[in-house]
């Protein structure tokens, strides 16, 4: 018998297949390994402090974040409110903007306009956050001072606007995908029944894509929570419970970024910053998981 016909012969293609499978497998599970790794590392660094010297009541209810005082206190309430207010403000302005942009790109724009807009929106996502921070500091700041006649232009309004613009591209892209997933036959059916373009959007397209739109908003919120540099630069970075949009605030992420370099490894300040990290990680994890579950919800239907 010709040895090339042997039933147990393994040729080059067999080995290539094995190697390729192994490489793809490593690529596939690396995402899981990295996310677990980050979670374990952040938790490990913060856990001693959380279980040991952290006063949980103080952490969640006090605004006194004095890690370098002789008698340090770790009240993170102002930081949480800072992050929440900036993100909330950003969403207030970014959600209508993004959904409007997605509706225009997905439902009205055609041909070259549509392609150009999609590319521009994606380019907006590629602007580095430090550049956004720069825009906040050197353009928005004087603009806000002049327009509203306030002493400082770095605050909730400034950071919120910057963050809103930063979150808009991802929200627009995901929302547009959700609109695109609505079968055209639905629109055609409604139009043939005499619905106007707007009625089609309001009564057919939005209800049919509401899960995807919600996921888009949640991803935007996740983006807002996590953003660091631009918020650090545009928020004023002052520990403060804001009472007006012009008040300066400090965000959780910005606190970590600004302070971690100055701490002693293993000190309670170091542990406290990692505790903020754990908290942020949990919040963004929950938001993203919700978004994911919501998106899966549409696919199943």
């Amino acid at each position, binding site marked *: 018998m010709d040895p090339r016909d042997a039933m147990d012969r393994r040729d080059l293609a067999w080995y290539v297949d094995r190697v390729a499978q192994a490489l793809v497998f490593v690529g596939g599970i690396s995402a899981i390994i990295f996310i677990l790794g980050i979670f374990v590392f952040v938790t490990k660094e913060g856990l001693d402090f959380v279980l040991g010297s952290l006063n949980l009541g103080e952490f969640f209810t006090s605004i006194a974040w004095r890690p370098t005082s002789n008698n340090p206190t770790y009240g993170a309430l102002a930081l949480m409110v800072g992050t929440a207010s900036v993100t909330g403000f950003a969403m207030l302005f970014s959600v209508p903007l993004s959904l409007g942009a997605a509706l225009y790109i997905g439902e009205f724009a055609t041909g070259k306009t549509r392609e150009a807009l999609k590319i521009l929106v994606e380019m907006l996502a590629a602007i580095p956050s430090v550049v956004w921070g720069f825009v906040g500091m050197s353009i928005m700041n004087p603009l806000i001072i002049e327009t509203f006649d306030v002493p400082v232009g770095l605050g909730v309004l400034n950071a919120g606007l910057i963050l809103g613009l930063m979150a808009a591209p991802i929200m627009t892209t995901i929302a547009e995908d959700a609109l695109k997933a609505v079968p055209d036959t639905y629109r*055609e*059916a409604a139009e*043939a*029944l005499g619905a106007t373009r707007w009625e089609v959007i309001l009564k057919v397209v939005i209800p*049919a894509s509401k899960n995807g739109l919600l996921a888009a908003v949640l991803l935007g919120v996740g983006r807002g929570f996590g953003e660091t540099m631009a918020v650090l630069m545009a928020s004023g970075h002052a520990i403060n419970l804001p009472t007006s949009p012009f008040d300066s605030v400090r965000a959780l992420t910005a606190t970590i970024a600004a302070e971690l370099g100055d701490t002693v490894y293993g000190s309670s300040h170091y542990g406290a910053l990692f505790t903020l990290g754990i908290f942020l990680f949990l919040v963004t994890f929950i938001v993203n998981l919700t978004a994911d579950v919501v998106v899966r919800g549409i696919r199943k*239907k």
Partner: protein
Amino acid sequence: MADGERGDYAIETRGLNLWYGDFQALYDVDLEVKRGIITSMIGPSGCGKTTLLRTCNRIIERLGYVRTTGSVSILGHDIFADDVELVQVRKRIGMVFQRPNPLPISIRDNVLFGFRLHEARLRKVSAVEEDEILESSLRQVLLWDTVKDRLDKSATGLSLEEQQKLCIARLLPVKPEVLLMDEPCSALDPAGTEAVEELIWKLRGDYTILIVTHNMAQARRASDECVFMLLGRIIEHGRTDEVFLNPENSETADYIEGRYG
């Protein structure tokens, strides 16, 4: 559009040409569809019959790269005229599509979709009135007994035959006069085809029906008049039995005898 129904025909086209971009799909089409009867359109794939049907309620313009010359009158009104509102045109003309396309909402909301669209603009509609309309529409399409216990369930869970009947039912509350049907049975199995055909025949008289079909037997069984199209032109139009028994044109004869298609 209340200024008298002056047209003798439900649908009348004059010198209608239509281009998709550079491709001309309709050539000089003159079609007269009589009121109250069923007119079928037959012809090989790509002959323009669906295009012609979709021009009658201007849904073809959704494509964006469509250009027309000539005129289309529905119930005596030129639908390309500047003072004609598309919404009003489409209120008078119902359309049934090739694939059943119920909206992803409940059966109830599907049936009442068009009604709410048009009536809610004018007045407040009571729930009792909606229920009556819902029931009578579903009864007319012989669907009431099947779905009366699950009116609030999603319409996409119905069988294709039921979905297609529902798509006909949702036209009725808007009180259209013309029904355009684009191969309404092509997605259905033989039993479903029979049921929907029966329904279409039942609607005859109350509505002017223009139906595109690939199925010659269906055109023959279920229409009063028949239009044969080829390469964007109307070749023959006459009483269905005449067209099938004594076609005037040799191309018609060839087609219905199955020499091409």
